Structure formats: structure tokens, C-alpha cells
């Protein structure tokens, strides 16, 4: 019966992939990519929690009595658009960092900061 939990395992695997990229990669763009994967795993978690077996999409119509939970859909739908806006902000910061330091590698930025001190 443990197999019924597989949706959470997929989420955990994705989340840890994203987390690993964020902490292990020195490249700032790769860190953002890791964050996107992490973010998507949370989306999938919410949506899969809202899924009900044998139910249909939450749009009221004749002949359907069971609907999936609409609340996670609302939360995630807005989260996706907010997510892209904040990702864009992060990428904009990276562009400025690149212009100021000439690099987007964590080590090099740290080195330049140390020299400036």
C-alpha cells in the first residue's frame, strides 16, 4: 500500500534535486534554475494533494458531482505567475552583478570582495 504515496516521493526527489543545485553550484544562473525546480516541486505537491480519485476539474457542470479541491489550484496558479516575476527579478540582479563584477561565479565574486576590503 506504500505505493499510494508515490506522489510525495516524486515531490521529494524533485525538491532535493533543486536544493542540491542551489547549494552545490557556484554559478548564479544555475542556482536560479535550481530554485525553479524546487519551486515546481512545491507546485506539484499542492496540486497532487488537491487531487481526488474519480473527480473532475473544478468547473461546475451537469452530470458531475465530485470535483477536485479548487483551493490548491488557486494558490498555485497565482504562485506560478508571482514565481516568474520574482525569478525575473533574480535574473535582473544577476545581470547587474555580472556588470559590476564581470563574473557570475560565486568564488570569483567573493575573491573580488575580499580584495576590496
Amino acid at each position, binding site marked *: 500500500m506504500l505505493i499510494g504515496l508515490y506522489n510525495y516521493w516524486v515531490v*521529494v526527489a524533485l525538491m532535493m534535486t533543486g536544493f542540491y543545485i542551489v547549494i552545490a553550484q557556484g554559478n548564479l544562473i544555475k542556482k536560479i534554475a535550481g530554485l525553479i*525546480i524546487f519551486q515546481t516541486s512545491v*507546485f506539484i505537491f499542492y496540486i497532487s494533494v488537491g487531487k481526488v480519485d474519480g473527480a473532475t476539474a473544478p468547473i461546475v457542470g451537469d452530470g458531475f458531482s465530485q470535483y477536485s479541491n479548487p483551493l490548491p489550484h488557486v494558490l498555485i496558479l*497565482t504562485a506560478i505567475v508571482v514565481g516568474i516575476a520574482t525569478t525575473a527579478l533574480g535574473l535582473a540582479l544577476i*545581470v547587474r552583478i555580472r556588470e559590476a563584477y564581470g563574473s557570475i561565479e560565486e568564488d570569483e565574486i567573493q575573491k573580488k570582495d575580499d580584495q576590496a576590503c
Partner: protein
Amino acid sequence: MLLGVYGLLSASFFVAMDAVDVAFTEASVGAGISTILMLTTIAITGRSELASHYRPTLALILVLIIGGLLIYGTMDMPYFGFAEAPANLHVSPRYIHDSMQEIGVPNLVTAVLASYRGFDTFGEVVVIFTAGVGVVVLLGLPGRRDENDAEIELINTSMHEQHLVVRIVSKVLIPFILLFAFYVQFHGDFGPGGGFQAGVIFASAIILYALLFGLSTARRIINQPLVQLLSGVGVLVYGSVGLVSMLNGGNFLDYSVLSSDPIAGQHLGILLIELGVGCTVASVMVIIFFKFADRKEALHYKPRETK
């Protein structure tokens, strides 16, 4: 790149999960806009990467431990698709059973988004607007370089020769994409759709145009100050609807008082705030794209000026 494929895959996954509204958004955001933004940033910052000289074993161990603990934590979770799961018990039955009488909108997602959780959505629109302002502040260029019409013509003719098939196909497609965005916007009460999805689809049509016909052509058609103004107007419309309902004696964002018939009031309120959302989302996405692209172009032109 791969991220785009990933976005499209998760979109189809969401359809399988009955979350059609979410799938719409993810398809246009994940597969379209985020990929373009990533590629533009990589183009600005350069694609080369230093080979890392340390082995992140510690990170790997940490990730494995956390992952293991999380999986251990899932053992007590309800099974996938279980109707009696706690998440499906508290507020959602009310949304599912009563919203037809209270809001009168068949699409439950729209009803919850725009009416029950209207305040939350308002906050999210403000976040999107703020992110747009942030990108403008970070990437805005001090002075605009004068546009040379002859140069634009040159670029245009050279581009006419390349990508001929793509350009002609997309020329036919773009009006339909825009039309579809409006359909999604105004049909959001009844089918999957709404302001967020429509805004993103609308923006992706404009971005597609800019990608294929050149930035300067797109800039001549799309008035940037106007777009920036529109992003503010969207937030303003949303907030004003809330204020008007307060002035009519209801709570903030309580649309029932907007009209003598509560259901009609709800319909009107949802339509208006979805319009505000669509306005803000579309213009913020367009602004973000143009700011990134301008930055790239400025980099591209700098070496030529110094010669």
C-alpha cells in the same frame, strides 16, 4: 532549453491532475516566458562556466539526509487521490457546494481566486507589480540611444531572408493568440481561464512578435511608457473595486453590494478585478522582457561605439 520542456511537461501533468487553470498558466509561463528570460540572461552573462574545483560531497550528504527524512515524513500522509484527506475537508466542500449560490460562477477556481480569496489575490498582483518595478529599476537604461531608421530597415530586410517560414507562420498565429488571450480573459467565469492566464498568453504573443520581427520594430508598435502605466492601472482597478464596494456599505472586495442583485454584483466584481489582474500581468511580463532585451542590445552595441 531543457527548462522549457520541463515546463511543458509539468503543464501536461497538471491537466492529468484536473488542474486545468494551473496547466494553462504553467504552459505559457514555464514553456514560454521563463525559458526566454533564462536564455536572454545567459546571452548577457556569457555561457562559459568555470569547472568547479571542489567536490560537493557535503552538499550531497545533506541533500540525501533531508530527502530521507522527508520521505520518512510522508509515511503518515494520506494516500494519493484520497477524497477524505484533511486537505480536502475543511473549506473546500463549502467552495464546491455553496459557491454556485453565493457567487454564481461555474468555474470554482475563479470563484475562489477572485471572490473568496480576493484579498490574497490583490496582494499577489501587488507583488507582481513590485517585481516589475524592481526589474525596471535594476535594468533601466539611463538614456535611450537614438533609433536609426535606416539601420532598422536594414535589420528588417536581413531578417526577412532568415526564418522565413517561422515568421510567416507566426504572423498568421499572433492574431489568434491575442484573440485567445481575450477569450481566456472574459470566459474565465465559465471555463478554465482568468486574468493571470490571459495576461501571460497576451504577453507571450507580444514577445513572440518581438523575437521574430526585431526589437526595434516591436518597440515602435508597443509604447513602453503606456505599458508601464497600464501595469499600474491594473492594480488601481483592482483596488478601486475594493474601495467602491466599501463605499457601498460592504467589506473591502465584497462584490455583492456592487449591484442590487448580489450574484450580478459578484459577476461584475470578478469581471473587473480579472481585468485588472490581466492588465497588470500582461504589462509586467512585457516590461520585464523588454528590459532584459534592451540590456542585451546595449551590450551588443557598446563595442561598436568604442571603435
